[in-house]
């Protein structure tokens, strides 16, 4: 068996191995770039300059950080559960990288375009929850444990709207193969026909990635980093690598499913370089919005987080699936989808606003009624 890799005739296994090595190397570099970019963007929002001393424009800052992390001592608490503690980071890191198998970067540059690619992507990436729980449990730290359980609850809850949003698009496109999905978006990207699915996917993706406002599992001011509070050195950097790799792959999937990936809607294809630039630009847009949200909004509370997924996102995603099915079965025009999507976005925004403004149900005792304020002189005496 042979396979074609950039015009080279290679054994299938050698081909796969080379592709994997390429991807992993590429990813590590990309992750470093993303960290640099995020720091620069955040600095601009904060009216700072950001990294500037390490290399030209501070470009080598991530390299310096990585070297520092590699050089640090790999600490393990004495009471930690050795196996789960040591293996936890890999169980987070590997599933994330498995997701890259199905992503087409440019028209003929990918590892494998599986027919059930999106399903595979979701199944693989959700495995990393196991790693979070392992890290939390193995650390023998209560912050880590709370963070890990939060991560598990959040991961499971937001998996559903995420999957359903993709299912809706899959029904419309008639395929779960990312390559074929992109090919159908040569004129109109799916975000036009499926705006609500795109929005639900985006929100659920934020939660899957543990990004603000859903960064509850790692909330710095509450659980001090959550599951990775006890990690140091290279193991800690694994968490970081996994986090940014997951962010990158999520932006690639978003750009492929909703924005048309490497396709340019207004005109002819201009070659591999242009396609790569388009993929980068579309994924970069997602990345920028994620960072933008990160530096602007506070963190949600755990009960708000859970009820938002189950009471708002999930029902709306189900309705989207239903409508897509009806349109498909009855052969209605796509304009109906667009109209429904716009209405859906409006509904989602309204419901979100109402959910946020709803009076709070306290878990403990009912709220004590406030005694009327005493008169001015009385209080001062």
């Amino acid at each position, binding site marked *: 068996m042979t396979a074609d890799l950039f015009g080279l005739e290679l054994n299938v296994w050698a081909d796969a191995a080379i592709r994997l090595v390429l991807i992993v190397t590429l990813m590590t570099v990309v992750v470093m770039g993303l960290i640099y970019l995020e720091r620069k963007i*955040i600095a601009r*929002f*904060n*009216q*700072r300059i950001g990294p500037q001393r390490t290399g030209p424009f501070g470009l080598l800052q991530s390299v310096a950080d990585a070297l520092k992390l590699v050089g640090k001592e790999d600490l393990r608490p004495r009471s930690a559960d050795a196996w789960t503690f040591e293996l936890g980071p890999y169980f987070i890191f590997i599933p994330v990288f498995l997701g890259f198998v199905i992503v087409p970067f440019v028209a003929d540059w990918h590892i494998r375009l599986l027919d059930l690619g999106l399903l595979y992507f979701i199944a693989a990436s959700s495995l990393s929850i196991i790693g979070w729980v392992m890290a939390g449990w193995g650390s023998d730290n*209560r*912050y880590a444990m*709370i963070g890990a359980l939060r991560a598990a609850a959040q991961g499971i809850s937001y998996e559903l709207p995420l999957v359903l949003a993709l299912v809706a698009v899959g029904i419309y496109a008639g395929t779960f193969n990312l390559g074929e999905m992109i090919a159908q978006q040569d004129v109109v990207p799916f975000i036009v026909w499926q705006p609500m699915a795109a929005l639900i996917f985006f929100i659920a993706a934020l939660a899957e990635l543990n990004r*603000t*406002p859903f*960064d*509850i599992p790692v*909330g*710095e*001011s*509450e*659980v*001090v980093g959550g599951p990775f509070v006890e990690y140091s050195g290279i193991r800690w950097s694994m968490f970081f690598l996994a986090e940014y790799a997951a962010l990158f792959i999520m932006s690639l999937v978003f750009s492929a499913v909703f924005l048309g990936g490497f396709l340019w809607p207004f005109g002819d294809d201009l070659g591999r370089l242009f396609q790569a630039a388009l993929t980068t630009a579309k994924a970069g847009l997602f990345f920028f919005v994620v960072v933008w949200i*990160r*530096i*602007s*909004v*506070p*963190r*949600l*509370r*755990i*009960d*708000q987080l859970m009820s938002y997924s189950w009471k708002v996102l999930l029902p709306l995603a189900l309705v989207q699936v239903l409508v897509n099915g009806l349109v498909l079965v009855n052969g209605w025009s796509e304009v109906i989808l667009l109209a429904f999507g716009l209405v859906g976005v409006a509904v989602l925004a309204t419901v979100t*606003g109402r959910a*946020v*403004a709803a*009076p*709070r149900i*306290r*878990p*403990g*005792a009912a*709220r*004590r*009624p*406030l*005694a*009327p*304020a*005493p008169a*001015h002189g009385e*209080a*001062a005496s």
Partner: protein
Amino acid sequence: MVTEHAQEFETQDLLLNVGPQHPSTHGVFRMVLSVDGEVVRDVVPYIGYLHRGAEKLCETMDYRQGIGFMDRTEYLAAFNAELSYVMAVEALAELEVPERAQWIRMILCELNRLSSHFMFLGAFGIDVGVFATPFIYAWREREELIDLFEEVSGDRMMYAYFRPGGLAWDVPRNFKDRVRQVLKSARQGVADFNHLLTENEIFLARTRGVGAISAAEAIEWGMSGPSIRASGVPLDVRKDEPYLKYDQVDFDVIVGQNGDVYDRYYCRLMEMHESIKIVEQCLDKMPDSGPIMPEKMPRMLRTAPGEVYIRTEAPRGEYGIYLVSKGGNRPYRLKVRSACISNLQALKDMSVGQYVADAIIVLGSIDIVLSEVDR
């Protein structure tokens, strides 16, 4: 069904130690939370990590040397802290403070309130989970204020600028212009925070209805400052017992309604407008020249035997100095009535029954300075 099933299990509350090394305990405060799932069942605070015996040390020193220690008890609002102290000494030594010095003191104290509240806003933004942005915004404005303090007193935090009888030296000649300049940026900063936090729906959802305390309970705990005003008690020493020239300026006491975290935040934000108003009036009324110390100051400051309690409205509440003298040039006993420690008493009442994340922002909303709590 589920609840019946759950009751079959013997469950145990998890003890979660927060602090003294924790990003959001604002210093070296430590509290042990008893957590049932995500719900706080009990809070046990531990204080004293920063106890330096400042009060006792002051008893071994000349009255003027004690000023520096008072700065360090309340390092975020040092002007307010030293004001209480020098006013107590002045009351015992029967010194008359010149009018110009009083206006300058008032301006500096209100500006210090602004800088302290900016610090609160920034730290509170981090507590509710915004990454760095509010903190940097707050520090930008606070930096302007601190630059001004440095121009006036020569130091950025520990000013030691108020002296019994008046001020250490006169303010720079461009003082009024500089203050007006700083006020402009402070006003912009308050507006920025309104946009960044007050108008943010997630922020509202996180803070409204959380950690409420009723007016009656707040009074029982002896709370003061914005923390009690948020519960609807218009307690403000500046209005109730005007000191300096507060009876000559026009300002409102900002009062909240619900006494929750949001009200405590919003009261502080609104108070900053009032502080700006006060400083502007002070600038208009302050004489451009005049003495800043009484004409006849003794070389060695001695007080008559007696005792005095002086309280002023510091940014965190009532900062009182109880001073006992048996004659001579040093206090016989000095006691600082700290606003933070009284406000902190209510922590348990506010946070039991809330989520863990709420307990953190409740602590943040009290706005403690640990060096004032422990002294």
